[in-house]
């Protein structure tokens, strides 16, 4: 079995061309693997047919956990484990627990949500990204189409992408090794062969 990955890469210059292009290309039955852009483009997720982000749910759940933990901690310490008379006030004074509960809610909601996002999407310090075209972090929008995933021929897809106002269209193959991307190999390669040769982020030509 062929373990290598074969992609057709379309480069778009303008964000509006890209948005319309994605719609046209999908209408013509081509499955888009992913689009890589230097900045967020509103509406692109709808054009690609992605489901809404789950981030709000994660934030709520972590935030709720934070509130519960903070209240449990404060009630447990102040009223159950070691009650102290402070100025003759009640041991359990809920208004005094509001600030810490609020702060803890915010802390857990932010860190819980963000770290979940980074872990789930695989954004970690040792991650080696599969870069289709290095210009996708600069000024170009890069569309990747997995040829194995599409029934149309390479030539047909090429002309569809061209018709959707892609600036250039070219083929990009990843070997199995490149596809998996190991941090150790990446670092070794970087220091033995230098920057331009380092496997996965090398220039495409």
């Amino acid at each position, binding site marked *: 079995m062929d373990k290598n990955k074969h992609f057709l890469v379309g480069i778009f210059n*303008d*964000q509006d061309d890209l948005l319309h292009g994605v719609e046209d290309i999908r209408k013509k039955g081509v499955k888009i693997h*992913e*689009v*890589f*852009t*230097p*900045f*967020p*483009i509103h509406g*692109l*997720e709808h054009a*690609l047919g992605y489901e809404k*982000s*789950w*981030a*709000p749910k994660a*934030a709520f759940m972590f935030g709720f956990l934070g509130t519960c933990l903070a209240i449990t*901690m404060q009630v447990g*310490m*102040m009223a159950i*484990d*070691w009650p*102290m008379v402070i100025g003759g006030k009640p041991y359990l*004074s809920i208004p005094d*627990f509001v*600030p*810490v509960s*609020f*702060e*803890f809610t*915010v*802390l857990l*909601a*932010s*860190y819980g*949500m*963000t770290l979940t*996002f*980074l872990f789930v*999407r*695989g*954004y*970690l*310090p*040792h991650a*080696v*990204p599969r*870069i289709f075209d*290095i210009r*996708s*972090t*600069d*000024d170009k929008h890069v569309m990747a189409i997995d040829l194995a995933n599409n029934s149309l021929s390479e030539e047909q897809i090429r002309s569809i992408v061209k018709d959707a106002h892609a600036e250039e269209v070219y083929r990009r193959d990843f070997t199995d090794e490149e596809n998996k991307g190991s941090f150790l190999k990446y*670092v070794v390669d*970087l*220091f033995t062969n230098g*920057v331009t040769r*380092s496997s996965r*982020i090398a220039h495409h030509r």
Partner: protein
Amino acid sequence: MQIVSEVREPLVTGGKTHKDVTEDICKQIEGAPAPAWLASFAASLLALAIGGYYLGDLLWNGIGKWGLNKSVQWAWDITNFVWWVGIGHAGTLISAVLLLFRQKWRTSINRAAEAMTIFAVICALFWPIAHMGRPWIGPVWAFPLPNTYGSLWVNFNSPLLWDVFAIGTYFSVSLLFWYVGLVPDFATIRDRATSKISRLMYGMLSLGWDGSAKSWMHYEAVSLILAGLSTPLVLSVHTIVSFDFATSVIPGWHTTIFPPYFVAGAIFSGFAMVLTLMLVTRKVYHLEDYITIEHIEMMNIIIIVTGSVVGIAYLTEFFIAWYSGVEFELYAFINRSTGPYWWAYLSMMTCNVVSPQLFWIKSIRTSLTWTFVLSIIVNIGMWFERFVIIVTSLHRDYLPSSWTYFVPTIHDVGTYLFTFGLFFTFFFLFAKFFPVINMAEVKSVLKEANSKMYRARRTLVTEPLPSIEEKVTEKEAH
């Protein structure tokens, strides 16, 4: 009748393309440091070293080295703490509150302002830690850790403990928000890097960011929620800082106006500090096309608003002190303005209430020199505000025999210098190694907000298309 919304000034001038944004920001990181940068960095290291000497002496001999006395037990330390925390607030305000309000002009200044927040909060955190005297056993006083030094747990009824949680959360969440914003820009630098070390370092910092549409979708949601969480957070932080005073029974501190008044003051001083830093960065890095006069004017308008709120708060405080009929309260305020510290009160009033009113004049709020000078004056004024609140309320204790006059020692000045050294060392390192402008966000507003598009819209407004008028008349006819 024709209704046309006003055409906004371009956010980015000079007809910049996406490629230009990358070039302009990255070249500061990739090139050799500018002589001006080296000189400023050396100066801040010197401040850090001199301040470090006094800090070492203070830690070795104890905080008796400060000018505190039996009546004035809080002075420069807490003044500086509140001052630095307040400065931090502008960064969050710009990045979070203005994001929620969809104010696109924030994109050029949010990165540096957030960096300022983080460094200012570090400087603020330094003060209560130094004030502990023995900071190495501080964790058991500040965090809920069981210990044998006194009561078993920390006291959750105390605003000082709320402060630990508030400032701790604020620092952590600001750091997270800032870092998440930096990730795509680190990826841009990584993909341009030519040296092995920077390719590796920026590669790790960028967490392997690839800018895929699905990630951007989650990223946008995460940013928006972080902004939504940071907004009440930033308001809560200075509210809780003001509780340190407001929940006490000291005349002059025991006022319910403190929370909103402190928050307004924080935004006021923070914007002033952002302006001081941005005007210098803009000049040194030639960022005139990104941080335009329009940006500076916007920030100056916020300074007028918050400065006026602070001014009204000063007057309200005074009025309420008289209106309450509590003679101790009234005495505290009369003593504040006419007592031995009248000069501090006068400095506060001049710098905070009078001087920002100059920004009503358009030529002053669009002048770089005036803005720079006034931004520094505002920060001096805000320092005096905290000094006035803290020291003048304490120096005349209940018994006239314990009335004192606080005079700072060289250790007060030295440790204050230390925090300046710390702040500027961090800031200059940031300015050299991190992108000072959020490239991804500027690129996302570039198409609709650059000067070319502005000219096109301008022509559309001055020579309206006939179809618009026809449609309106049709509607009116119905």
